[in-house]
C-alpha cells in the first residue's frame, strides 16, 4: 500500500507568467469590470541611465578642481523665435502637474522650491492658480487638449507656453481625474460639474498633425506678441520623427518624456505597455535635432525617471539641454514618506508603492484635494526640501562634469559615456564599457 505522505513530491510552483501580481490583477478586474487606473510612471524595470557610466578624466584628459574651478549650470530656453527666452540657473526643471491632481499647497511648494534654485515650474491640465503664479518665478503654462481654465490673461502671465501633444506615461492617451478630486474649486476651474469622473481628450480639439500645429503655434505667438518661448511636449514613442516635426512646426523647445515619466492617473496598461524608455528616446531626439542643424538652437528637455545628478549628467551628455522632474519632486516634497506607513497600510499599500493618486486620499497631503490631508503639507518646509534636493542634483551633475574636465555641464558629450549592457549601448549609441563596440551603430540611429 502506498504511503502518500512518504512519497517524494515536487514543491508547489507558481507560474512565472501568472505571477502573484498578475493573478491579483485578474481577480481585481473580474470583480470590478474596470481597468486598473493609477498614477506614477512605468514600474517595470527597463534599460535606464543606471546602465551608463562616465569616463572620468585621468591621464589623457584633465579634471577640473571640484569646489573651486568654475563649472556652469545655467541654461537658456527659447532662443529660436521668442523675444523673451527663459534663463534658468540649473538644468533641472519641474514637469507639468496640475492643480487638481496636486493640492494647492503642493503646487505652492513646487513654486517655492524651484524659484529658490532659479528654475521653472509648469502648470498642468487644470489651469493656472494664483498660488502657483505667485510662488513661481518662472512658470511654464501648459496648453492641453482639454483647455481647462485656458484664457489669454494667464497665457500672457506665463513665462513660456508648453503645447502638450503627449506624455511619456501615456503617448496617444488622455488623462482621467476621478470624482473624489473634483472639488468645487477644481470643478469651477475646469467648468465641470463637481464630483464627476473627468475624462480628458487625447487630441487637441482644433488641430491635428504638425502642419496644423504650425498654424496653432502661430496663433499662440500672435496672442502673446511673440514674447513667450513655445515648447512642444511629446511622449516618447517615435522621438526622432516627433522631435523633427516639433521643430518643423515652429517649436522653440522640445520636451521628450520617456515611459518612466509619471501621470496623475491613467490606465496601468497604458503606463506599462505604451512608449519607450527615456534612455532610448534621448539619442533619437538629439539625432533629429542634429540632422536638422537645430541642436542647441531648439532646446531639448528630457524627462521620465530622472532621480539623481548622475541621471541629469547622463541626459545632458547624450545631448539634452535640460531635464524635468515630476515624481522625484513629489518625493522630495514628502510623497510616499515612510512616516505615514500605517496610513498607507490602511489604504492597502505601503510607502514607496502608493500610486492611487487619483483617489485623493494621499496621506502626505500632496495628491489630494481633501482639506484635512492637504493641511499636512507645509508649503514652506516642503519647498525647502525641494530646493535642497534640486541643489543636490545640481552639485552631483557638476561633480561629474568637473571630473570629465568640463567648465559647463553642457559640454558633457556622448563620448564621455560607456554602457554596462548591450541594450543600453544600443539604445544610447555609446560603446559597451571596455570596448569600442556600439551595437547597431550601422543602423539609422
Amino acid at each position: 500500500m502506498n504511503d502518500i505522505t512518504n512519497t517524494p513530491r515536487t514543491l508547489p510552483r507558481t507560474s512565472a507568467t501568472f505571477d502573484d501580481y498578475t493573478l491579483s490583477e485578474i481577480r481585481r478586474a473580474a470583480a470590478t469590470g474596470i481597468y486598473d487606473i493609477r498614477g506614477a510612471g512605468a514600474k517595470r524595470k527597463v534599460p535606464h541611465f543606471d546602465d551608463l557610466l562616465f569616463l572620468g578624466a585621468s591621464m589623457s584628459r584633465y579634471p577640473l578642481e571640484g569646489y573651486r574651478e568654475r563649472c556652469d549650470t545655467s541654461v537658456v530656453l527659447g532662443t529660436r523665435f521668442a523675444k523673451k527666452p527663459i534663463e534658468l540657473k540649473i538644468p533641472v526643471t519641474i514637469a507639468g502637474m496640475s492643480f487638481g491632481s496636486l493640492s494647492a499647497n503642493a503646487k505652492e511648494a513646487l513654486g517655492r522650491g524651484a524659484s529658490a534654485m532659479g528654475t521653472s515650474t509648469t502648470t498642468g491640465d487644470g489651469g493656472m492658480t494664483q498660488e502657483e503664479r505667485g510662488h513661481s518665478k518662472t512658470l511654464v503654462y501648459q496648453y492641453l487638449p482639454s483647455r481647462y481654465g485656458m484664457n489669454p490673461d494667464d497665457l500672457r502671465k506665463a513665462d513660456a507656453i508648453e503645447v502638450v501633444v503627449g506624455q511619456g506615461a501615456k503617448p496617444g492617451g488622455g488623462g482621467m481625474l476621478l470624482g473624489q478630486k473634483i472639488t468645487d474649486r477644481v470643478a469651477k476651474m475646469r467648468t465641470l460639474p463637481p464630483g464627476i469622473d473627468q475624462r480628458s481628450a487625447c487630441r487637441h480639439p482644433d488641430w491635428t498633425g504638425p502642419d496644423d500645429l504650425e498654424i496653432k503655434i502661430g496663433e499662440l505667438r500672435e496672442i502673446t506678441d511673440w514674447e513667450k518661448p513655445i515648447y512642444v511636449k511629446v511622449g516618447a514613442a517615435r522621438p526622432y520623427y516627433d522631435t523633427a516635426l516639433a521643430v518643423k512646426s515652429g517649436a522653440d523647445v522640445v520636451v521628450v518624456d520617456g515611459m518612466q515619466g509619471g501621470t496623475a492617473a491613467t490606465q496601468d496598461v497604458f503606463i506599462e505597455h505604451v512608449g519607450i524608455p527615456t534612455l532610448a528616446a534621448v539619442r533619437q531626439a538629439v539625432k533629429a535635432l542634429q540632422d536638422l542643424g537645430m541642436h542647441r538652437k531648439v532646446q531639448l528637455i528630457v524627462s521620465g525617471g530622472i532621480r539623481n545628478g548622475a541621471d541629469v549628467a547622463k541626459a545632458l551628455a547624450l545631448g539634452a539641454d535640460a531635464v524635468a522632474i515630476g515624481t522625484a519632486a513629489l518625493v522630495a516634497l514628502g510623497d510616499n514618506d515612510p512616516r505615514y506607513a500605517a496610513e498607507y497600510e490602511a489604504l492597502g499599500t505601503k510607502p514607496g508603492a502608493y500610486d492611487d493618486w487619483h483617489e485623493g486620499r494621499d496621506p502626505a497631503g500632496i495628491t489630494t484635494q481633501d482639506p484635512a490631508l492637504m493641511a499636512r503639507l507645509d508649503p514652506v518646509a516642503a519647498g525647502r526640501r525641494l530646493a535642497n534636493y534640486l541643489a543636490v542634483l545640481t552639485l552631483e551633475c557638476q561633480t561629474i562634469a568637473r571630473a570629465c574636465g568640463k567648465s559647463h555641464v553642457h559640454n558633457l558629450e556622448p563620448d564621455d559615456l560607456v554602457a554596462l549592457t548591450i541594450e543600453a549601448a544600443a539604445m544610447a549609441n555609446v560603446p559597451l564599457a571596455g570596448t569600442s563596440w556600439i551595437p547597431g551603430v550601422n543602423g539609422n540611429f
Partner: protein
Amino acid sequence: MCGIVGLFIKDPKLEPELGGLLSTMLDVMCDRGPDSAGFAVYGAGAPGAVKLTLRGPAGTDFAALGGRLGLPVAPRDTHAVLTIPAGREIEVRARIATLAPEVAVISSGSRMELYKEVGLPADVAKRFNLAGMAGTHAIGHTRMATESAVTTDGAHPFSTGPDQCLVHNGSLSNHAGVRRELEREGLRLATQNDSEVAAAYLTHRMKGGDSLGSALEHSLEDLDGFYTFVVGTESGFGVLRDPIACKPAVMAETDQYVAFGSEYRALVDLPEIGKARVWEPEPAKVYFWERAA
C-alpha cells in the same frame, strides 16, 4: 503632413493658364510642407502615344538618352518627358534600365506628366517652370515629411498606374499591413511612404475593375488613419477625406474651374474667386469631376 492643391479646368480658355495658377497655389502652401514638392499636370496627348516622365540625377543628359533611344525627349531640369508609341512601353522601359540605370521612370500615361523634387515648393515649381505649363487639370503637393525620409522618392504625387496619381495630407495607421498585402499581389512600391501605399491601393482596385469612385469608396474600409486624398486620372480628379476628417480641405467652384486647397489661402488668387462657391468637402464622401470624353 502637408499641403494639397488641385485645379480642374472647365472653361478651355483657362487651359493655357493651368500651370501658372497651380504654381501660385503651390507657393502659398510652402508653410504646410517645406521639405519637398511635386505636381502632376494633364496636358496635351497624341493618339497612340504614351508619355513617360523620367527622373535622373542632376546633370543627366536626357537629350543624349533620347538620341540613343531614337525617341523625342523634352528635358526639364532633373526630369524629362519621353514620348513613345503606346505599344513600345515595356521595351523602352527595359532599354532605359540598360542604357541609363540611374534614370527612373516615375510616371506613364497618355497625358500626365509628373515632377517632384526636394526643396521649398516655390523653388521646385520654378525649376520645372510649372508656370509655363498648360493643360486640363493638375494636382500639386507640398510635403512636411512625417515618418519617411525627405527624399525625392518620398515627395508626392505618387503614380502607380497609367495617368493616375495621388497626393495625401494626413497619416495612415495601417499602411504597413496594406503594403504587405499589395506586395503579395505583385505590386512593387518604391518607398516606405504611407501615401504611396494609398496610391498603389487605388491602382490595384482599379486594375481589378473598380472605377476611381468605387476604389475611393473601398479605401474608406481598408485604409485606417487620417487622410485627405486628391487623385488625378486622365479625365478628371477626385477628393476623399477620412470619416473623422481632421485634416483641412477647402473647395471652390465657378463656371470656369473646380479648385481644391488644404486652406483657403491657396485659392485666393484664382480668377473671380470672390464669386466662387466655396465649401468644405464632407467627410467620407467621394467627390469626383470628370471631363466629357
